[in-house]
């Protein structure tokens, strides 16, 4: 049936494509501006990419299940507001509290998706609007400043003087998700749900729980990303993370995860997030004018996806 019988080397290559795309991009930026490839500059990229990595890693799970989570950015914004409001009273407990609340909100959307049988695109699109409204109301439509940011300051430190703590945390999150998936049956369950939900269900896979769980983790990741943003901005704002939605989705797809579900991994999203961050930050820094920057950004992500997507696993591209 399948025509892809023996293409092992090619397949291995597509597995590394996100990394190759990343390296090519760094090389191109360095050629455009030799000052770009400095240690400090790369450290700054890593620090910058951290929230996006975390957001993308969480949403990757939902995409692997065959859905999409459009609410992550709005949820992260709302979480920054919560964190900023709670820090004065809860102190160090505010961080876990915010992540827990974000996870719960994610789970609620998952439940709505599963029980009401509404496509995740619609549930999370609605969720996005609702969460934004709540954030506006809770914050009084203004930014909430964090006067004492010591409970989240640790994210702004540098490990060993070089590795930004936020980047290390992001890496740990990705690693933990990846390891948990690999060593437990979750990996099979999620892929089965993504590739063929009905087959998974008829094999007794707890499809509904898996999906709710994915939304829950996606929400928790949005919460953690919010903590990182607050530690960087010293404040919370009702629209602070809103613009990270499309970059996060782009990161997932550029990493080579199939938007139709099943095929992909959080590691791919890590590479994808770095590519997207380099594009967002790198292009203007090396002096590409604003208009051309957008054109290049658009063209490069299309090409990057063309390179990274493993088409042997996806028969029809929609």
């Amino acid at each position: 049936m399948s025509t892809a019988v023996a293409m092992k080397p090619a397949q291995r290559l597509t597995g590394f494509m996100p990394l190759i795309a990343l390296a090519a991009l760094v090389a191109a930026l360095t050629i455009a501006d030799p000052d770009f490839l400095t240690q400090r500059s790369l450290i700054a990229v890593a620090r910058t990419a951290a929230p996006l990595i975390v957001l993308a890693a969480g949403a990757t799970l939902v995409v692997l299940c065959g859905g999409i989570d459009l609410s992550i950015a709005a949820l992260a914004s709302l979480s920054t507001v919560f964190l900023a409001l709670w820090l004065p009273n809860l102190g160090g407990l505010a961080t876990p509290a915010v992540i827990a609340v974000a996870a719960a909100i994610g789970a609620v959307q998952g439940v709505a998706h599963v029980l009401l049988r509404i496509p995740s695109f619609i549930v999370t699109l609605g969720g996005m609007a609702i969460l934004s409204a709540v954030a506006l109301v809770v914050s009084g439509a203004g930014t909430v400043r964090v006067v004492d940011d010591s409970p989240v300051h640790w994210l702004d430190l540098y490990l060993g003087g070089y590795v930004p703590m936020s980047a290390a945390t992001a890496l740990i999150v990705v690693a933990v998700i990846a390891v948990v998936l690999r060593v437990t049956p979750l990996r099979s369950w999620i892929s089965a749900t993504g590739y063929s939900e009905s087959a998974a269900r008829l094999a007794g896979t707890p499809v509904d729980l898996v999906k709710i769980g994915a939304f829950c983790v996606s929400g928790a990741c949005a919460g953690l990303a919010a903590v990182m943003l607050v530690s960087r901005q010293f404040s919370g704002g009702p629209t602070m993370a809103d613009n990270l939605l499309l970059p996060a989705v782009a990161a997932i797809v550029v990493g080579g995860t199939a938007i139709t579900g099943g095929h992909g991994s959080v590691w791919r999203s890590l590479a994808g997030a770095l590519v997207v961050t380099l594009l967002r930050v790198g292009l203007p820094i090396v002096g590409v004018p604003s208009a051309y920057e957008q054109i290049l950004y658009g063209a490069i992500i299309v090409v990057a996806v063309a390179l990274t997507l493993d088409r042997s696993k996806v028969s029809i591209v929609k």
Partner: protein
Amino acid sequence: MNVTPRSAAAILSLSLAAAVLAGCSEQAGGGNGTAAAGEATCEPSKVRLVGQVRNESNPYEASWLAGGDEFAKSVGLTQERLTYDGDSTKQQEQISQILAGDTKCLVMNVLPNGDSDTPPIVKGADQAGAYLVTQWNKPADLKPADYKTWLSHITYNGVESGQQIGDALATAIGGTGGIIALQGVLDTAAAKDRFVGLQNSLKKNPGVTLLDQQAANFSRAEALTVTKTLLTKHGDHVKGIWAANDDMALGALEALQQAGKAGKVAVVGIDAVPDAVTAVKNGTMTATVSSDGSWQGGIGLAIGFCAATGKLKVEDIAAANRAFFAEQFLITKDNAGEFAAPKTNPADFECGNVFNRVAGPLT
């Protein structure tokens, strides 16, 4: 991207080990710490000028960058133009990337996306020792005077402008009647201050009633739809439209035209974008308040340039000039001609004159 559990575990333990061994530090390694910061002076040719605004696709911010270019040209340099699409995170990302480069003799003239975006920019610039001028948005309790290289914060008095156009609107409709208000992006100081100004004006003019207020997010297109809806909702009760910026005022004008009410309803806005000034001149719009984009684009760089080259000592800047309201003028039909083509005077940017347009300290 196959990472086995074992290698992933290795990464985990390695990073933890690194943490324990090396401890944590505040600053990325290989940095030059707090650099020049006012002590060493820079060669004028070594100064790096950066101007950052939201985008190049609206007239006000485009003129800002043009003003910056003009100033840079006058001192034989070029301005690095950065735009962040109104995306707070992108702005921070660009700033931290700029600060990760060579920060000696770096001058930044920044339009922070919102109040909350200012503190991290200030902290970053302070650590890197880059000269910084911010405009429009900053939290009230964050003061340039407390920092060494955050030279100044420039803004316009939103409460005042909101009140000025509110009063002008009240006069235009003869002191009595209903008006509607179009608010800006709710999460910005500019939108809130200007609305406070309107409320002050309403107190002063008891005959004027606020029928409705809706957010149109500083956008011409949104203002068009919102105005159309409000016009049908309140019908002929609407005598005037108060818009928190000129783009929305222009959108409201289009809506009036489409509703066949052009000329029957007074419209006011803020910012004095060229189209609005023309409209005021033609009499289709009642009033607007000047804010001078190209001056703002040049002045921030000029202050920084003067400080970097040592012509202006940070200690010498008067406290009142570290955070100030710039001069603004109410533009009505009478004086619209003078503002039709805003001209930046190169003399404004000379180091002795940079604070000429101070209207008063920021309160």
